[in-house]
């Protein structure tokens, strides 16, 4: 008689069919960078309330720390999760092991080194002074090489597939890969002062430099925060709810219209500036059109749950996906509204923009990420989540705190903007700049509170996942010991793993 336990043991001691080790690594690092990004974000919010927290240390001043926050969030958290999810999805949908043995590791260590060195160089004051592209040229060289390795690993895995059609999620990951490569290289064309030094000057100046920057800045969001996370939505949502995707045809419309239209919306970020009117008008026009693909995505995701809505009551992981999609729809509508010239005159340069960005990054991106991570971890460690109730708790805390944080910021922005434009009956300004700033006191406290609660939610998740993994490993070790003992009684030896 061969006990089933022994069979399971043998299966387990085979080399893994899929390369899950790399996915596990990236998932853990996504959590590490994500929590760090939140901590830095809360510290920055506190610095604005109590400037004494800058501690008169160069590395801790708001100006040096703010890029650290965005670097950790965008490249550390979102970047690592993109690697984890795309490597997982590519293997599962192609039913093939990830291509290469060394190159996936190169992408892992290369990416982590890039994020770490990026943060350190920003703290030391090395910067290109362009948002999300602060890294000086030696780091750009590193990140481009890592990205090329990623492109190779990912596409080589896709080429191994036996089923001809490429699943929708992979389209979005591919677009992200290509888009980021194109954007990053053009944005970072610089002239180094010295080949042995960090400092460089942008190849572009003034208005052209502004347009290149926001073409990049806007589309980092398009590709890394939208495309990549829509790719995750297209795979993980149907899996989590256990139903097929609502419409394949709608996903074609969604993909191609989003890829085409998104890029054009960049000049929105330069409304009312010295950028020529024709460019801004094009930007606004295309951002109105963007509503269409965005809602194609929202509808495709939500309708996939159609007929299984009752699972929301029992499965809090699914709630994260649903909330993320609703935030995605909301952020798109708000973004379009903010691109209109009359609204933009009010919103530009205020906390409204910051609030909008946090609806996107916490509401859409993070909620989606949490759903994906809760889905991935039990499968990667071959176990069940430690506590579903803690997931539900995390969901409600996260939902409440996103709305508190982002709404506080938007109120801050609108309130200050209205004061900035208030004139008296003779046409003179009523408020000095500092008098408009006085409006921010209460909203800034609420923003800090919202951010802190969001971190608490994330820590609940980390606790839940750590216990999950620890218990899984203990159980596995116990099973292995029991089997080894049984086999020893029969005079057999366990196969070498």
């Amino acid at each position, binding site marked *: 008689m061969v006990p089933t336990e022994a069979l399971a043991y043998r299966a387990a001691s085979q080399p893994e069919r899929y390369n899950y080790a790399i996915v596990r690594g990236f998932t853990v690092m996504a959590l590490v960078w994500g929590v760090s990004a939140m901590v830095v974000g809360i510290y920055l919010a506190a610095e604005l309330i109590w400037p004494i927290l800058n501690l008169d240390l160069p590395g801790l001043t708001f*100006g040096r720390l703010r890029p650290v926050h965005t670097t950790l969030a965008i490249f550390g958290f979102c970047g690592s999760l993109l690697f984890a999810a795309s490597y997982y999805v590519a293997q599962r949908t192609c039913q093939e092991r990830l291509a290469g043995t060394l190159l996936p590791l190169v992408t892992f260590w290369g990416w982590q080194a890039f994020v770490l060195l990026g943060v350190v160089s920003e703290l030391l004051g090395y910067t290109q002074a362009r948002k999300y592209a602060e890294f000086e040229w030696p780091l750009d060289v590193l990140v481009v090489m890592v990205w090329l390795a990623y492109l190779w690993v990912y596409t080589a895995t896709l080429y191994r597939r036996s089923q001809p059609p490429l699943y929708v999620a992979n389209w979005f990951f591919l677009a992200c890969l290509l888009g980021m490569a194109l954007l990053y290289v053009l944005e970072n064309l610089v002239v180094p002062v010295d080949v042995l030094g960090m400092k460089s000057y942008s190849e572009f*100046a*003034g208005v052209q*430099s502004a347009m290149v*920057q926001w073409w990049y800045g806007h589309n980092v969001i398009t590709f890394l925060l939208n495309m990549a996370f829509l790719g995750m939505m297209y795979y993980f949502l149907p899996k989590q709810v256990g139903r097929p995707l609502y419409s394949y045809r709608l996903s074609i419309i969604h993909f191609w219209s989003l890829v085409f239209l998104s890029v054009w919306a960049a000049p929105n970020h330069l409304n009312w500036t010295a950028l020529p009117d024709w460019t801004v008008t094009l930007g606004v026009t295309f951002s109105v059109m963007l509503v269409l693909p965005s809602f194609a995505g929202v509808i495709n995701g939500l309708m996939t749950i159609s007929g299984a809505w009752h699972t929301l009551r029992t499965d809090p992981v699914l709630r994260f996906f649903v909330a993320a999609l609703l935030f995605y729809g909301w952020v798109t509508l708000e973004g379009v509204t903010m691109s209109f010239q009359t609204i933009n005159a009010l919103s*530009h340069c205020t906390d409204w923009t910051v609030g909008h960005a946090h609806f996107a990054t916490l509401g859409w991106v993070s909620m989606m990420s949490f759903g994906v991570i809760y889905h991935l971890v039990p499968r990667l460690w071959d176990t069940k989540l430690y506590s579903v109730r803690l997931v539900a708790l995390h969901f409600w805390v996260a939902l409440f705190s996103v709305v508190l944080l982002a709404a506080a910021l938007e109120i801050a922005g609108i309130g200050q903007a209205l004061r900035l434009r208030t004139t008296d009956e003779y046409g003179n300004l009523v408020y000095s700049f500092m008098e408009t700033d*006085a409006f921010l006191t209460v909203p800034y406290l609420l923003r800090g509170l919202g951010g802190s609660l969001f971190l608490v939610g994330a820590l609940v998740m980390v606790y839940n996942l750590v216990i999950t993994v620890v218990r899984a490993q203990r159980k596995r070790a116990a099973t292995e010991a029991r089997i080894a003992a049984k086999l020893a009684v029969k005079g057999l030896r366990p196969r070498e793993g």
Partner: protein
Amino acid sequence: MKHEWIETHTSHFLILTLLVISIGGLVEIVPLFLIKNTVETVAGVRPYTPLELLGSNIYQREGCYLCHSQMIRPLQEEWLRYGHYSLAAESQFDHPFLWGARRIGPDLARVGGKYSNTWHIQHITAPRSLVSRSRMPNYLWLKDRPLQYSDIEAHLRALVRAGVPYSENQEQYDKNVALFGKDVANRLVISRARENLLAQVAGNADGNVVSPTEMDALVAYLQILGTLVDFKKYDEGYFARFR
């Protein structure tokens, strides 16, 4: 054409996606380099002197652009608060642009000449000693740190490669004289960068110069912002023609 043709061939998919992504950027960016009216024709705007350039680098290093914009919009309230709206020409020598996107502090596009050097030094060192509820950090160390300018020529040469007209030889110098006048052209000569830098520090500090600090450079930069164009020379409709 059926979508199957695209999605069953990874290479078709890659090429087509790359093409579709590129269109928007091409249409919106390339003309900005080609259309002459993108940057206004206006007298007065010149490249930064060596001292101002290093000041701009410190402005970037400390992330000032994250809380201060340098882009006054053509709106009534901004006219009242900050002055004439910013022209594209005014940042034509900024590599990169520093327009900013957030005003935690006020816009700085025309801050030049509004406050004295002493005020700026006091304000940057201890903002709350002048503006009681300011949210700005104290930049205590700038006035003590010696300015690194030993490689200033390399900085200027890098900018020449990016298209800024600092002069290396007589021909380029003559061109600058024609463009900016003799005084300015003299300050853009690469081989005279160090003596120009020291002379400007001495001038700003009323001759009491020991050795230039980072604060000297930063203040020199702030004091030039928005002061180069004489708007009295142009009638109201002139700049609208370029928009």
